[in-house]
């Protein structure tokens, strides 16, 4: 403990003034400037997807008209796609289309891309939400445990355990999980969102299978869905817990080394109370922002894990379209991931602003 008091110098002691509640108005100006930044980033995102979309070596017209089309048909489609116009004009057409919600038609399904995506997105959100619940619970508790036992064996074990989660190729973990828990032990369901013979039994209302089956009070489907969800969600959760553990540990260490913790201990509070009632309460806001960011990066793992588990979600949609070269669908997916990321960043920033008085 003597080490701790050394780190906090006189400055922090002087900074503690008598509790005066100063209510400052919410800082609208900084919020507006942040929203402006977000708008610029979104615009950049559109430029990026546009550029990537135009980079591809394959001919988009050929993909539509086929190999044996006459020259007239080819040129008609060429003009229809607006490819005869200058590049900047094409960009503004793209911009207008995106802003009016027109993302083009999928070559494979013939439906508007956005309809397809909205149809598959709930499956991914269900998976990712379950995964983040597991990842956050695991990550936060391990992080606190590691911080409390800093440099002792639990800290080292947790460090290696969470770095393992960070270093595993998630598609491989998924396969091994299937081999062990499904093929060998039979504890969980295999690939897909539910057992085959339940497909179509429950009306699709929200697209979230757990909610839909609960609404229909079809508990057999519910159990099957849960059975299929648990393995991919645990694996995703484990991989995202690495980041959460590390951040929780370092936030907790920051708190534990401060004087108020020593004071609380001197006042006679138990170790457990100082950890959970004092230190942990102070890192809540930081944790929420971390979890929000981790939720965003789950999308990355979801792309791979959905391929392994034949999970009919966003990631599978993205990879399937990528393999057949349907750039409309791919670019829309990329755009949506970017928007989700930016939104989560914004939300976590706002939470910080609202709950942490120091940022005002």
């Amino acid at each position, binding site marked *: 403990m003597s080490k701790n008091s050394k780190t906090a110098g006189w400055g922090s002691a002087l900074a503690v003034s008598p509790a005066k509640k100063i209510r400052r108005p919410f800082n609208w100006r900084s919020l507006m400037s942040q929203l402006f930044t977000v708008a610029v980033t979104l615009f950049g995102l559109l430029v990026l997807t546009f550029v990537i979309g135009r980079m591809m070596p394959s001919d988009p017209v050929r993909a539509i008209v086929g190999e044996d089309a006459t020259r007239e048909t080819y040129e008609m489609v060429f003009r229809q796609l607006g490819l005869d116009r200058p590049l900047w004009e094409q960009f503004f057409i793209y911009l207008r289309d995106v802003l009016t919600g027109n993302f083009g038609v999928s070559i494979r399904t013939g439906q508007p891309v956005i309809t397809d995506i909205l149809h598959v997105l709930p499956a991914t959100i269900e998976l990712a939400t379950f995964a983040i619940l597991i990842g956050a619970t695991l990550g936060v508790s391990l992080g606190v445990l590691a911080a409390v036992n800093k440099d002792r064996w639990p800290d080292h074990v947790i460090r290696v355990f969470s770095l393992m989660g960070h270093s595993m190729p998630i598609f491989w973990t998924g396969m091994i999980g299937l081999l062990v828990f499904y093929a060998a032990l039979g504890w969980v369901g295999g690939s897909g969102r539910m057992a085959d013979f339940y497909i179509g039994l429950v009306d699709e209302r929200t697209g979230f299978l757990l909610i839909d089956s609960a609404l229909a009070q079809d508990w057999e489907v519910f159990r099957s869905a849960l059975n299929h969800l648990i393995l991919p969600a645990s694996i995703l959760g484990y991989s995202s817990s690495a980041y959460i553990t590390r951040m929780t540990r370092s936030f907790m260490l920051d708190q534990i080394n401060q004087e108020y913790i020593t004071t609380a201990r001197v006042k006679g509070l138990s170790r457990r109370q100082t950890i959970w009632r004092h230190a942990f309460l102070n890192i809540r806001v930081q944790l929420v922002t971390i979890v929000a960011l981790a939720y965003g990066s789950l999308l990355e793992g979801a792309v*791979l894990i959905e391929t392994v588990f034949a999970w009919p979600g966003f990631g599978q949609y993205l990879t399937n379209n990528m393999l057949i070269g349907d750039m409309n669908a791919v670019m829309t997916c990329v755009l949506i991931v970017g928007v989700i990321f930016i939104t989560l960043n914004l939300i976590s920033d706002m939470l910080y602003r609202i709950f942490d008085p120091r940022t005002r």
Partner: protein
Amino acid sequence: MTTQATKLAVPGPLLALGNILRFLMKSPTSAFGLLVISVLIVVAVFAPWIAPYEPYAQDLNNTLAAPGGAHVFGTDELGRDIFSRLVYGTRITLTIIFLVSIVVGPIGLFVGTTAGYLGGKYDTVMMRITDIFLSFPSLILSLAFVAALGPSLNNAIIAIALTSWPPIARLARAETLTFRSADYVAAARLQGASTSRIIIKSIVPMCLPSVLIRLTLNMATVILTAAGLGFLGLGAQPPVPEWGAMIAMGRRYMIDSWWLVTFPGFAILLVGLAFNLLGDGLRDALDPKQMNRR
């Protein structure tokens, strides 16, 4: 006198490297990381002597043979020796890491140091662009690039490089900001050094150590992204013995022949873990305050 002379002969960077190495060896986890990476390099260099078979040699009479006997890790669906393929795969892994780092380092340094030193509008624009790239998960953006360029190992490397320079640029900028107003930079300016000379001679060398650490830390991510791309069929194409692609091919026979996916996966895990452990140790060794930086 002689001892002093030899001491002076050892260049500073080498001394620092020795110190870092000594620090790393004290922690068992970083020592383990260092060991695995050394083994990886040795295996890659001496692959033809270590591998008992040719990586592409098929033996159709002996397909999907279980581990043991003549084939330590078994054979795949075409009777190729999995151990030999893994050994040759180290070369691909190291190539990917090397090429990505050699592209990403200079780009990140250039963008970061110029943005930090010049400041103003240029800085704002560059950091906006960096933020846009950072607003994607790296795998998704690499996927998009590969989809546009066409799947191949080279394009996967280009895509990974295109998506992993922003954190380096951020770091180099932050470092530059701390050195920009340093006295020695002011002195160089007063002597009439040009902007480019100041950046190259005075700023870049100061940013180099932290950028190198960051690159090491990046390597684990690079390996995982490359393997992920390979697995999705967007990276190295069969029959190249890239570990991710090997897992993708073995997936079809996974239920009956577990060894097809298990060993390449272990290889990726081991190398990824090694780079993470080493990076972790380096962070502690060189700057404990940087622990939380992305």
